């Protein structure tokens, strides 16, 4: 009747790790990521840093940023690029240009179509050749291969009109992590020009979908914030759903049908092993992390009645936080960990509620028309994103008290919003009517800048991890 239950102990005792991984629908583990070290880099230090020159949000959309190829001191071979550090410098500029273009705030140009500065010009731009190009901002950088194969990447942001440096930073990365240096540089530029927190150097976990609507294969997958370094973590023999990255990127919570029932697993990214979130025969759903990564919220159905529970990551006793008849599910902590927003149909339809972290003071916060589902508290604390069901499904935001409703998208079925690490961009998935095909989309808090995030196959349930250290 349930062969898996009998086989698992046998497998653990007799078979190699890979066989165990197969039986759990797991692919090869990613392993632990390498460190990125920040280093001080040379520059023109004859005066102090300038304050921001951009103050009006509406101006950002027209802010031209020239991003020529990063220079190199000498074209050296590197595992990061078959053609050496010179070609790598162009690729780094291309990644930065793509990042800044895709959030709708800037008009980046380059590296193609722009002259390539020399290594010496990185700290002393040739102003005359940039002032006539219509770009207010200029990004320069270099890449240098060290004897130990690691790469030093320097990143500089200049104000063309002022002919002065706004900010600079450098990083030492493993060759395999060269894109992270490009993301760090993108973050430096974005944060300096907008005053917002960075978000490019982050990863996204999601569900990759293939196959026809009545026989969809759903696999756990991860990728960088721009879609690069894509990896499937499960093999697809069991349906995987609703992943969530841990705050330190060491684990992913997700739902798998690997034993035939929907259950939440804690997947360890370094080792590629996974364990049940709680040893229990009941279905467990809707996993979430506490902001400090010490607790897991999950929902469990007992005889058809679903409630929200909290368990320490280290294991131990689960605490039941809701006890009303009906479906209480999901749950998203406020950034300070003191409150939880969740959804419940105790009133007859799905609505959003807030409670204290211990389950006390439960109160409904949504009273506008339609339903409120999948609420997610912003990392900044000031907004809650949710799926608004009023005819179609749309992504909307409100304040933690349920005011200030703003609907940000207008697809037929947009659901399951999660936040970028800086709380400025919301990611969700959009399902197409009839075909059932789904894709990841992003929208900023203004609702004006919406874009599809490219994925190798159809995609759902995006979950953005925090900024990487």
């Amino acid at each position, binding site marked *: *009747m349930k062969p898996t239950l009998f086989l698992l102990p046998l497998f653990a005792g007799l078979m190699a790790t890979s066989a165990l991984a197969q039986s759990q629908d797991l692919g090869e583990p990613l392993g632990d990521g390498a460190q990125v070290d920040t280093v001080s880099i040379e520059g023109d230090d004859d005066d102090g840093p300038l304050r921001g020159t951009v103050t009006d949000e509406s101006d950002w959309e027209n802010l031209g940023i020239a991003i020529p190829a990063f220079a190199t001191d000498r074209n050296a071979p590197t595992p990061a690029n078959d053609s050496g550090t010179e070609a790598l410098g162009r690729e780094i500029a291309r990644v930065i240009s793509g990042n800044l273009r895709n959030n709708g705030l800037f008009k980046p140009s380059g590296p193609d179509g722009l002259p390539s500065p020399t290594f010496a010009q990185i700290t002393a731009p040739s102003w005359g050749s940039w002032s006539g190009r219509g770009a207010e901002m200029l990004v320069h950088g270099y890449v240098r291969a060290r004897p130990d194969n690691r790469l030093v990447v320097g990143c500089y942001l200049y104000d063309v009109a002022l002919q002065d440096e706004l900010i600079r930073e450098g990083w030492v990365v493993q060759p395999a992590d060269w894109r992270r240096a490009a993301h760090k540089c993108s973050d430096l530029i974005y944060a300096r020009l907008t005053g917002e927190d960075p978000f490019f150097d982050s990863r996204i976990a999601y569900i990759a979908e293939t196959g*026809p*609507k*009545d026989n*969809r294969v*759903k696999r756990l997958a991860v990728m960088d914030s721009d879609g690069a370094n894509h990896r499937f973590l499960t093999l697809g023999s069991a*349906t995987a*759903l*609703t992943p969530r990255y841990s705050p330190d990127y060491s684990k992913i919570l997700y*739902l798998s049908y690997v034993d*035939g*029932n*929907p259950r939440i697993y804690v997947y360890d990214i370094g080792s590629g092993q996974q364990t049940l979130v709680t040893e229990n025969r009941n*279905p467990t*759903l*809707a996993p979430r992390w506490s902001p400090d990564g010490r607790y897991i919220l999950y*929902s469990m*159905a007992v*005889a*058809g*009645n*679903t409630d929200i529970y909290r368990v320490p990551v280290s294991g131990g006793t689960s605490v039941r936080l809701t006890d009303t008849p009906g*479906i209480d*599910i*999901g749950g998203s902590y406020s950034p300070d960990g003191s409150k939880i927003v969740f*959804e419940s*149909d105790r009133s007859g*339809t*799905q609505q959003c509620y807030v409670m204290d972290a211990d389950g006390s003071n439960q109160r409904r916060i949504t009273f506008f028309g339609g339903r409120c*589902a*999948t609420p997610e508290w912003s990392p900044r604390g000031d907004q809650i994103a949710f*799926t608004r*069901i009023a005819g179609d*499904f749309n992504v909307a935001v409100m304040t933690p008290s349920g005011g200030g409703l703003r609907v940000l998208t207008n697809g037929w*079925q947009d*659901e*399951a919003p999660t936040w970028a690490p800086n709380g400025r961009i919301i990611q969700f998935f959009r*399902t197409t*009517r*009839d075909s*059932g095909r789904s894709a990841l989309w992003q929208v900023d808090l203004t609702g004006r800048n919406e874009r599809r995030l490219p994925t190798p196959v159809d995609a*759902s*349930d995006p979950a953005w991890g925090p900024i990487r250290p």
Partner: protein
Amino acid sequence: MTFSFPKAATVALMTSTLALGACSKKAPEELPPVQQTATPTPTPTPTGPVGASVGTQAHFEQAVGSSTTIYFDTDRFNIDSTDAAALQAQAQYFARFPQLNFTVEGHADERGTREYNLALGERRANAAKNYLVSLGVSANRIRVVSYGKERPVALASNESAWAQNRRAASVIITGM
């Protein structure tokens, strides 16, 4: 063939099945495809339906017809009279074949959020299970699983398809 539950109960079940047999099926305007080889009214003959062998889903479907599956209104999980008739046909079948165990699979239509639909499918499957238990089917013969909106049978995005997907389907556990 021996019967493991009291004759009075059998008679009561058959009577109610017949009484409800004339009821029109509610929500689905187009029912999911079912094998048309069997009549929907089960005839408890000792040999069972011709063709499929006991312990297969085909045998179950031949015996109870479309009653292997019950349907729900949007966001609802209650057992209405049409569902009750179908579940009574199932209960009769499982009374005749006490060696069989089965799974009640709960489903939702695509017009709900994923996590809520998983919980809703669980609730629907349990509603069907509880009703079957109330009809005398032993609870330990019934496994319950929810697939939420992940396994639709009708693929269009319209009311008719959604009605067919809001369901609890009983499936024989084979290979024992």
